[in-house]
């Protein structure tokens, strides 16, 4: 073993090096540069799209121009439709994510702690994981009707697996010696769980949560299309019946932007904070 300080398979990370620009002006310039770098590919893509529309001159209900989409976006926003529908979607993802993550972590812990439960559940879990939440929607519709329940259950279905598997993996990768060490300090099982296994598994859990919510988000939009009781999925689906192609694309853009913001401002910082602070994962 080259690094004696670590009892597990995780190598010691280099110290986090952070280059901070000096002064407010410099940091504003840095933020602007970062934003520009983030936006540049989208600008390029939109330009290409505008060019294609300009050259082919397809009718607007087949492929609208970026300007038409921007107009449609402004229209659904001004009418208040976008805010109401996006609000529905956000409410559902928050509800499903909070409860689903709790279920996934609990299940993962049970599997991580007891080998026999993991061995028992592993094959069926892998089998069911291969069936996407969408494939279950007909059944969920029969069981729960065209309601929020169906949507939330479909999101759970996609979200719980990655969270549970990652939590299990995380619990299992916590070196046994950490547990032993705390036991010889007089630690109880409760303390082992909350002071050793949970913090030790956090980087994996956070990774699983990020993945799970990403899957859940997609399942949510699909479920909204099928259930048809509000939400961004329903917005784009209903727009199709009226051939409001620009509105469809505006809705898709809203879905993408919402996800990007959630990931960029919530999930990624969470992952980086736990991992970098504790130096648990080599990057």
């Amino acid at each position: 073993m080259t690094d004696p300080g670590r009892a597990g398979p995780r190598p010691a990370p280099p110290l986090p090096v952070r280059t901070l620009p000096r002064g407010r002006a410099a940091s504003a310039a840095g933020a602007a540069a970062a934003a520009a770098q983030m936006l540049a590919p989208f600008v390029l893509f939109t330009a290409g799209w505008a060019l294609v529309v300009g050259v082919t001159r397809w009718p607007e209900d087949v492929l609208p121009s970026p300007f038409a989409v921007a107009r449609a976006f402004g229209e659904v926003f001004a009418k208040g439709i976008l805010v109401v529908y996006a609000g529905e979607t956000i409410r559902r993802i928050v509800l499903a994510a909070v409860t689903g993550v709790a279920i996934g972590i609990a299940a993962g812990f049970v599997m991580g702690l007891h080998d026999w439960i993991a061995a028992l559940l592993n094959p069926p879990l892998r089998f069911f994981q291969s069936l996407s939440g969408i494939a279950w929607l007909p059944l969920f519709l029969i069981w729960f009707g065209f309601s929020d329940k169906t949507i939330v259950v479909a999101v759970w279905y996609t979200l719980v697996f990655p969270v549970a598997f990652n939590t299990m993996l995380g619990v299992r990768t916590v070196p046994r010696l950490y547990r032993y060490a705390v036991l010889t300090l007089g630690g109880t099982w409760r303390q082992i769980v909350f002071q050793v296994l949970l913090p030790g598994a956090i980087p994996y859990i956070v990774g699983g949560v990020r993945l799970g919510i990403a899957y859940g988000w997609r399942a949510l939009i699909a479920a909204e299309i099928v259930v048809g009781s509000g939400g961004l999925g329903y917005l784009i689906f209903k727009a199709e019946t009226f051939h409001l192609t620009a509105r469809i694309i505006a809705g898709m853009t809203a879905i993408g932007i919402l996800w990007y913001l959630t990931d960029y401002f919530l999930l990624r910082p969470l992952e980086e904070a736990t991992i970098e602070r504790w130096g648990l994962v080599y990057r």
Partner: protein
Amino acid sequence: MRAKISVEQIVHEYFNPSTWQRVRALDGFSLDVPDGEFVCLVGPSGCGKSTLLYLIAGLTRPTGGRILVDGREVVRPGRDRGMVFQEFAILPWRTVEGNIGHGLEIAQTPRRAKEETVRRYVALMGLSGFEHKYPHELSGGMRQRVAVARTLAADPEVVLMDEPFASLDAQTRNVMQEELVRIALHERKTIVFVTHSVDEAIILGDRVVVLTGRPGRVKASLPIEIPRERRRWDVLGAEERFVRYRQEILRMIREEFDSQERAAEAVRA
């Protein structure tokens, strides 16, 4: 006087999944450790030295025999028996302070008393200025000092040490050994220390117990009659008794090694 630790006729077998065989690590092992003694265990690799510590700690249950600490049979780990592991095993998500105070936190020591003890061990171990650092920001030597401090701060009556300095560089190791001699002098604890190094066993131990090859039994038990104040590397080398102890222990380990070799040859033949 009743022994602090009584190891009585311990038999320990474990299953080796790579050879699909049961291995007998200890076979009728007995050892008494009086209260306050610093005993060092040396012996060939695989003789069950570490296993013995895990058994005393209560982390592993023996196949046969029993272990008494203060006359009570060991059935599970407890804070009366602290352990320092070869691979340190300090928690990477706790700071130096958080790790050292962990045992006190578990014992629900009042905050004031806890901080006081942590401060004392931080100073004693030369960790001042690093209280708020995380383990990955420390050198190997410092991490092991944190591990030793964590175990001692919890104030166990028995301290079990499993080759704690084996992975340190020679310089750090020597400093740590001298520090441990000093600490053992101040804080009267019963210490069982497992090591590969004969020199380390002599500088640290009140007594050195030499184990036979697998399955491990006690081959010899040697009291080390070098006064504590002479146990420093700069003067020990000149100590004639040190050289004598060293030769004798090395001779016994060599004997064990040779007999194992012969046994292996007999099996092959």
